[in-house]
């Protein structure tokens, strides 16, 4: 007999998996039912709270992985699959439901995608948020605040609303609930990797970028609670059975590092090879939800301050060793035995950081493996063999 809570948990996770199979379909239905405007965003620096506060729905764009045909006429083959894929989707009409799109400045490719999108996609408002690249000076902080204030006004104009401080505070609270719940879930996964499949964790995180934020906040909070209960229950059961249980080798603890990872299969293949992802530094993972926004101060300043303090993306600058320090700290905290770099081909900022991050981990005695992916994972067997060899090698 599976307890009631467990069934509920499975259902919630299954719901996220279903949404992930067709994010556009979900958002189209959501838009029809709620009447809310949908605003597409790129990257984890898109100020989702301001979009939410405007009464619109922020929807993170990744590219659906369809064959590139139309985007060929705009972007060369040495452009990453995320940028080409998103352009392909919009040119092919798969994103016709978007009311607008917001481009935070990150890398050179996104910068040009913004221009190309603006010139080729009609009937969809377009806003650039040209964020500072350095995040460690007072001037940059002030610019970030000024810029978000401007964005608040511009977005309000596009959507025909006035965004009040109270709207922003409400949105910040929802965002914080999502982030706090995801942090709890990630924490549990790190503590007890067997409690949740990696692909489930992936689905929960990605769902937070797609689903109605109020709904997903509640869903994630419930999932966190149920997992905590499950974990507590297992601890009790575990200690009661001590000495009698058949010992199953614990999975090798792995941290994933890189940019966008929209390959849920990778988690499963790692698990089947005898590993488990116990933490990450991914922009589709912990970089998305790390750090809460202060709810008791000026809301725009508070949003800016989270971006300045948050784990940094390699397209931004906050000191010379910030990312390596974080990654080494993360592997220690998570007691990781190895790091897998998951890099998107043609992603310059990540490719530039890889050698020094790798060196820092080497000095810290953490073995690493590099996996570079263009648009889909390498043939299953090949990847499995590589992961197995890596998992076997690490202690």
């Amino acid at each position, binding site marked *: 007999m599976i307890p009631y809570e467990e069934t509920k948990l499975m259902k919630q996770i299954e719901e996220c998996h279903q949404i992930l199979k067709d994010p556009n379909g979900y958002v189209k239905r959501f838009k029809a039912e709620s009447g809310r405007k949908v605003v597409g965003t790129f990257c984890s620096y898109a100020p989702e709270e301001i979009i939410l506060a405007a009464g619109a729905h922020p929807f993170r764009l990744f590219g659906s992985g369809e064959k590139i045909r139309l985007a060929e*006429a*705009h*972007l*060369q083959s*040495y*452009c990453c699959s995320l940028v080409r894929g998103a352009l392909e989707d919009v040119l092919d009409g798969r994103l016709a439901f978007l009311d607008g799109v917001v481009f935070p*400045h990150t*890398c*050179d*490719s996104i*910068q*040009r*995608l*913004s*221009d*190309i999108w*603006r*010139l*080729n996609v009609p009937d969809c408002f377009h806003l*650039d948020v*040209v*964020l*500072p*690249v*350095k995040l460690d*000076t007072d*001037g*940059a902080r*002030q*610019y970030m605040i*000024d*810029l978000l204030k*401007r964005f608040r006004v511009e977005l309000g104009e596009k959507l025909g609303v006035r965004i009040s401080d109270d709207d922003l505070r409400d949105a910040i609270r929802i965002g914080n609930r999502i982030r706090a719940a995801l942090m709890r879930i990630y924490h549990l996964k790190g503590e007890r990797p067997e409690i949740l499949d990696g692909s489930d964790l992936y689905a929960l995180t990605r769902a937070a970028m797609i689903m109605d934020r109020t709904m997903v906040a509640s869903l994630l909070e419930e999932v966190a609670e149920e997992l905590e209960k499950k974990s507590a229950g297992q601890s009790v059961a575990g200690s009661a059975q001590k000495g009698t249980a058949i010992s199953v080798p614990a999975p090798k603890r792995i941290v994933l590092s890189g940019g966008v990872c929209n390959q849920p299969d990778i988690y499963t293949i790692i698990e089947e090879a005898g590993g488990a992802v116990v933490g990450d530094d991914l922009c589709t993972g912990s970089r998305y939800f790390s750090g809460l926004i202060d709810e008791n101060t000026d809301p725009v300043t508070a949003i800016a301050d989270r971006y300045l303090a948050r784990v940094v993306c*390699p*397209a931004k*600058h906050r000191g*010379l*060793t910030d990312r390596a320090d974080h990654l080494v700290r993360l592997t220690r905290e998570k007691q990781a035995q190895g790091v897998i770099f998951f*890099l998107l*081909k*043609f992603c*310059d*900022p990540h*490719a*530039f*950081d*890889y*050698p*020094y991050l*790798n060196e820092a981990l080497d000095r810290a005695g953490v073995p690493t493996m590099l996996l*570079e992916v263009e648009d889909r994972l390498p043939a299953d067997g090949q990847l499995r063999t590589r992961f197995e060899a890596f998992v076997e090698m690490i202690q």
Partner: protein
Amino acid sequence: MAEKDEAKEKRKIKTVAKMKEIMTAYYIDAKTAVQTGKKVAWITSGGPVEPLIAMDVIPVYPENHGAMVGASKMGADLCEKAEAMGYSSDLCSYARADIACAPVNGGPIGGLPRPDMLVCCNNICGTVLKWYEVQARFFKVPLFILDTPVCHTGYSEEAKRYVKGQIGEYIAFLEKVCGKRFDYDRIKEVGKLSVQGQRLWQEILDTAMNRPAPISAFDAFFHLALIVTLRGTGQTVDYYKMLLAEMQERVAEGIGAVPSEKYRLLWDNLPVWYRTKWLSEKFASHDACLVADTYTSAWCGALRYVDENDFLGSMAECHARIYLNIGVDEMAMQVMEMADKYDVDGIVMHSNRSCKPYSFGQYDIQRIIREQKGLPTLMIEADMVDERSFSEGQIETRIDAFIEVLKGKNQAMG
């Protein structure tokens, strides 16, 4: 044959020797900085060099070094070395070559002189930020970043304040690293010389408005070194005066860069450094002259924003609004203005694997130009330094076919 050689000799630009002399002296100066007690700063090509000159700091340009690596055909070898260090082969070849040179003093001039500081302005790309971070960690020297938000559709008030504020931070940085006060009188002089140099450079490029053009983009790629490297010095002003005089003389005598100029073309993107001679001869063999380019003209593009009498005050805008730091549509506008100004018959675009901000958007620029000007465009797929990305046979075929298109157009019109 004798006559032909004589004509060829006549077409050679005479000041080249002087230029080589200046550049050699400059590199010797930079390489002996340790002995002379001068400080050395590595700086990006779009970076604010004038305050360095005002502080007696020797500016050194890793990008110029990258170009030298390319021209000496050492690119593929150095890029491979960087790849062995873990840098992806998809990264900028200037960066790869420079990163590979640093630890072993490799490359055509035995490595660049060790920097005392790094100055990085991201108005040209995000790559320079990552590249300079790598070098700042390697050399363990302070890094200053001039962060110039990209002007997709304009220069916002917020960005204006932000960049302006950073000029002050930059001066404070220099004072700290150099251990002396900034000389506000000196920067005025340096600023004037810089503007004068930029104006002269523009005038030199503009002599190509004549038919035949006395100077081609291939010549400009070479003579560019001074406006990049020694902008703000009297030396640059003197040299460009000489070069301008020579160009004016050539105009008067009707000497063209290409013997019998029939087609006038505009080049877009960085040069293919290891194939400039081949490309130059290839186009010349078709009586085609590259009379202008978007690359070398970028060093005088800021003239529209500069205030000679308030150089420091206008510096922020000059750096934020350069050619690459604007939207693709504004870039297309500027290309079309140049196409008109130099009266070109077509555009040659180098789709450069190394330079994403320069290359992504080229297809749209191509389309806009076709729609608005009806000008034909040739797209060449290559890389500025890594010769492994150059396919001679394919490019030759494409150039030949492009010239056929131009011929057809000429005949239809004639």
